């Protein structure tokens, strides 16, 4: 099976080197490393004195949870916005 490049800028060759990330098991590993990192950062709130201004910033793990949920909400909202805002690529050129 060979793929033809769409624009002649070089294409995948058969039998080329397999990279570490080509193996999906490694991608899964990376995901779990990220989960572990999050857990560590979350728990680290127990080990230092927070110097912050607003009361809610003192909540345990506030910044992590805030980051997770707003990012999640951001993407899902943007996905819904697509239904209203997305048009064909040549929309303005017609």
């Amino acid at each position, binding site marked *: 099976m060979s793929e033809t490049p769409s624009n002649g800028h070089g294409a995948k060759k058969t039998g080329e080197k397999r*990279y570490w990330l080509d193996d999906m098991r490694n991608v899964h590993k990376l995901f779990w490393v990220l989960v572990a990192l999050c857990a560590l950062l979350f728990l680290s709130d127990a080990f230092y004195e927070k110097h912050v201004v607003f009361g809610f910033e003192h909540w345990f793990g506030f*910044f992590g949870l805030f980051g997770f949920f707003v*990012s999640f909400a951001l993407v899902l909202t943007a996905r819904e916005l697509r239904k209203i805002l997305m048009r064909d690529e040549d929309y303005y050129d017609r």
Partner: protein
Amino acid sequence: MIAEFPPGLLMIGGAVLVPFLKGNLRSAYTLVLPLLGILQLMTFEPGTFGAMTSFGFEQTHVRIDKLSLLFGYIFYIAAVLGALFAWHNDDPLESSTALVYVGAAIGATFAGDLITLFFYWELAAIAAVFLIWAARTDRSFRAGFRCLLIYMVSGVLLLSGAAMYANATGSVAFNNIGLDSPGGILILLAFGIKCAFPLLHNWLQDGYPEASVTGTVFLSAFTTKLAVYALARGFAGTEVLIWIGVAMTAFPIFYAVIENDLRRVLAYSLNNQLGFMVAGIGIGSTLAINGAVSHAFAHIIYKALLFMTMGAVLFRTGTAKGSELGGLYKTMPWTTGFCIVGGASISGFPLFSGFVTKSMILTAAAEEGYLVPFLVLLFASAGVFHHSGIKIPFFAFFAHDSGKRPKEAPFNMLLAMGLAAFLCIAIGVYPQPLYALLPFPVDYLPYTTTHVITMLQLLVFSGLAFATLQRTGLYPPELRSTVLDFDFSYRWLAPRAAGWLMAVAENAGMTVTSKFLLLLRGLIDRIFQTHGPQGILARTWPTGSMVLWAAALLALSLLFYYQ
């Protein structure tokens, strides 16, 4: 004498020679000029020169203080990076336009009065449009034209505002203006257009991604940051800017998530970063102003870096669309690495430049008690990591394998990206030299345990959200598409509304015209009836009746005079 020479003119005058030079000599020339400019700035002492009187007003061509020097330095640094990145470029039009553009932005930065500012402001606008046109595509021509129209509005507003201000105050000096000054609102709007305020922003996402691979790198640095400088000079502490800035940080990130053209995603994230600076200027405390202008400094470098990496991808593969890319890390590892450094810097990871500058703005917002702005800025910080820190590198270099195996970027591009990446890390690791350049003394420690941990929590959890959304298939895929933004109003709605109005008017015109013609015909018929061959007034009347009429008139006048 080089010290007393207006700094912008060095570049603008130097541009004249570009068409006469060729190949490496021309490239070297465009690199040496900004380096000379940096040397000149190093000889500057705070003060003014180039005073003159015109239109009855005292003008100051060059005003040197910490604020103008900071922007002068970073503009020259951006010009050096841009020249290095464009070393291979064999387009005298683009090279000379870029020099004029840089020079105009630097001239405006050092302008001590509104008339000089206006002159350079307009020159920068025209040069920017030519830089977009230098891509020589049909799309770039049309986008450049739209930019030109919007820039002209900004120029007219600035001139009108300056005239009102000068008329009322008797001075054209460019210092703090504020909204309450006569003409203040017009001047703020003029700056706001160039700073891509919400609803005035679309020229940015429209124009910049249509410029050439190298043109966009230049464009990303100057126009908007000149506006940030002008706002910091003229409107520091204007509270409405906090809310404008906050809105600017928030809404572009939704677009950045669904936009497919990765250079356009970067334009949206540029808009979002400007929001942080505008909010900082609005807060107006010394910490906030320091934060805003240092963030502009760091931003110019990492944004140029990100545009360079996407430019390199476009240069090698012929596209910058997320839907067409993926897996490029295999053959463009250096570009991938530099892109990740740019992404980490814009996201504000500890040890990268955005961290030591943006955190000042966030801290200032909290210290001044702005709760809602603080939360929105925090949301936007997570959002910017999402689309610039993750989406850009992920969809270009990783994601699904597009099968494209382009060569690594040319050496000059790698050198420019490497230098920019080095500066991003250098500022992040050792911010003191940048802090020393800031307009106010810095009493701020970026690397406290609280700052580092809370920022890492925000970012890494945001990354976890991305990974989760990817694994669950909830993340919207990159699709070839156009996403409607406010430019819909003038690119689609207005032309159609105008067309509709014209049709209605034409219809109404037809009705009016036909009615008028009927009326005219009636009149002509009537005249024909009375004056035509058979008309009563056209008859040859006998002399007798003439005498009769004369007698009747005489009798009438006798009657009147006898009373």
